[in-house]
């Protein structure tokens, strides 16, 4: 009989996710699992609503990336209406999406991961936190807050509301941009560039101290993400590309509506989060990681041929040197990729705003139902997000399939924590170092699991070592 170790974030509210580490009879780690136990049933209760209400409903899936859900949803709506939206509307939606990247990536990097990354895992635990970060890098900490705020502010300027807005609608957007608003956004950009430059510099300097982690987080897998028709870095539209660990093109550019030919979702009875896998590589097999692919910042930089802006392309070149020249396979570098994407977003916003055409007030196309199916695919900060709707002739939703970014990474996250457990678990006792790395390993993907639910600020971890007869041999609690 196998022994099970359970790492459970004991929130005062029923947990949203927990980690179990399974040992085999010899005491070695056989597998680690990330359980997502929050069941939300969005796919069920969207049925029966008109498709044009969907952006308002689905953006409530998340409080961190509502913008991505709204955009995937309005794109599915555009497809149902069968319209090409006014060009300016598309540009405004893109700015909207890049602003979302800035705020979401900034939160992940500066607020959640920076203490570990900039101070190191071996830093005194008592000060390896925000306080320590502030003491050592006050400027980074201060700028981080302002960068996140800036992303939120751009969204607010465009949509009058930073969270759960209703600005993006099927057919376009509700209000155009005006010169005053444009100037306000433009005024914020220089500080953003400055912040990101500083962060990149610090992060790159820190790689040396993470040699172990870099290899532990390193495993082969496919990568998936949208690219422009020319193969460039893309976040809002484009073709879905799959590449291998060595950089080979598996599928150069799949049209959005054909995603089901490439992605299938498996379920496990211990998690509500589904397990999408790459279908052409044979049937689902979790233990062999067949069909496993990664999405998100790391994957996007791996699948694209180029970024398309001068500074981001420059960074991309140095990023690729960390891998085999084309592909970076260690999930540790999600952090680096995130910073490059913030830089890219800033450059693209600046470039798009420069053209006076952006102030045009023709921003919404009108149409009824012209297609009974609509697929909206965007790159959310955490990866490819797919909204797939079927409607009746009156536009009432009859079926919904949502594949969220965190889902795509499900297999990879399980793989990462298995690797960490194998490397850092000593005997049957859990060490502080292992705990830190399990936490960090999950955080590298910046998963969105606990959205809209409040948990105690500090999530203590409790680890129980349970012998085969069910008694607790050792209990380890931190926090």
């Amino acid at each position, binding site marked *: 009989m196998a022994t099970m170790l359970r790492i459970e*974030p004991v929130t*005062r*509210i*029923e947990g*949203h*996710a927990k980690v179990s580490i399974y040992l085999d009879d010899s005491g070695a780690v056989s597998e680690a699992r990330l359980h997502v136990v929050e069941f939300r049933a969005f796919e069920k209760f969207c049925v029966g609503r008109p498709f044009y209400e969907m952006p308002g409903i689905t953006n409530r899936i998340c*409080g*961190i990336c509502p913008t991505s859900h709204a955009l995937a949803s309005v794109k599915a709506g555009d497809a149902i209406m069968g319209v090409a939206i006014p060009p300016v509307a598309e540009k405004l939606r893109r700015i909207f999406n890049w602003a979302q990247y800035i705020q979401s990536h900034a*939160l*992940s990097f500066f*607020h*959640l*991961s920076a*203490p*570990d990354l900039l101070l190191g895992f071996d830093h005194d*635990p*008592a000060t*390896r*936190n*925000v*306080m*320590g970060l*502030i003491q050592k890098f*006050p400027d980074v*900490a*201060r700028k981080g*807050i302002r960068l*996140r*705020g800036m992303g*939120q502010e751009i969204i607010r300027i465009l949509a009058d509301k930073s969270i759960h807005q209703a600005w993006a609608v099927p057919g376009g957007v509700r209000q155009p941009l005006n010169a005053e608003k444009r100037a306000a956004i433009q005024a914020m950009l220089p500080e953003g560039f400055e912040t990101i430059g500083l962060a990149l510099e610090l992060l790159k300097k820190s790689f040396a101290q993470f040699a172990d982690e870099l290899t532990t987080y390193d495993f082969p897998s496919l990568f998936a993400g949208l690219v422009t028709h020319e193969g460039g870095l893309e976040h809002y539209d484009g073709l879905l590309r799959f590449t291998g660990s060595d950089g080979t093109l598996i599928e150069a550019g799949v049209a959005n509506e054909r995603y089901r030919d490439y992605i299938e979702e498996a379920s496990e009875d211990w998690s509500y989060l589904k397990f999408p896998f790459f279908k052409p590589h044979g049937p689902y097999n979790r233990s062999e990681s067949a069909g496993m692919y990664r999405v998100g910042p790391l994957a996007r930089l791996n699948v694209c041929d180029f970024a398309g802006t001068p500074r981001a392309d420059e960074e991309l070149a140095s990023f690729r040197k960390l891998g085999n020249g084309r592909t970076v396979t260690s999930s540790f570098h999600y952090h680096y990729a995130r910073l490059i994407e913030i830089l890219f977003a800033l450059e693209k916003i600046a470039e798009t705003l420069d053209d006076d055409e952006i102030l045009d007030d023709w921003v919404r196309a009108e149409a009824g139902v012209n297609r009974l199916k609509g697929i909206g695919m965007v790159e959310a900060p955490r990866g490819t997000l797919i909204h797939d709707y079927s409607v009746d002739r009156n536009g009432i939703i009859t079926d919904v399939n949502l594949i969220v970014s965190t889902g795509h990474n499900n297999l990879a996250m399980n793989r990462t924590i298995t690797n960490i457990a194998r490397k850092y678990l000593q005997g049957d006792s859990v060490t502080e170092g292992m705990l830190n790395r*399990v*936490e960090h390993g*999950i*955080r590298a993907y910046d*998963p*969105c*699991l*606990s*959205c*809209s*639910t*409040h*948990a*105690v*600020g*500090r*999530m203590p*971890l409790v680890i129980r070592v349970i012998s085969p007869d069910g008694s607790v041999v050792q209990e380890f609690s931190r*926090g």
Partner: protein
Amino acid sequence: MLLLIGYGNPLRRDDGSGPALAGMLAARGGRDDLRVITVQQLVPELAQDLAAADITAVLFLDASVSGCSGENAVSIQPLSGVSPSPVLGHHFSPAELLCYAELLRGAALPAWQLTIPGIDFGYGEGLSASAEKNLAAAFAKVLVFLRKITLQ
């Protein structure tokens, strides 16, 4: 100006006691040196509210899982120490928020945290009888606290 931040999720029963207490204090009125904010969870942007020029102190109002009841169950503690960020969430602890606020304003900000123990954190509205009792005690305690810090 004292900033009161009541946080928690009112749809998870006792978790809503923080916002409930904030609501009671806001409704009571009678003081113009209080600013009350209620949120579901603490997010980084709040640091900017904490760092506003007119804010001189902050009191966080929150629920806790201790399950105790009675007068002494409710505590007001000065905020101290900082813990690492949460593993899976995208929210902040009061202490983390305070660190950022102090960074932004460039000076220390006196801060306290009041916790109201609850027992029922399941789905649903309304507080358990125990949390309700604790809420009443917390209300009384805050009023005393408010009088005291004004004297300082």
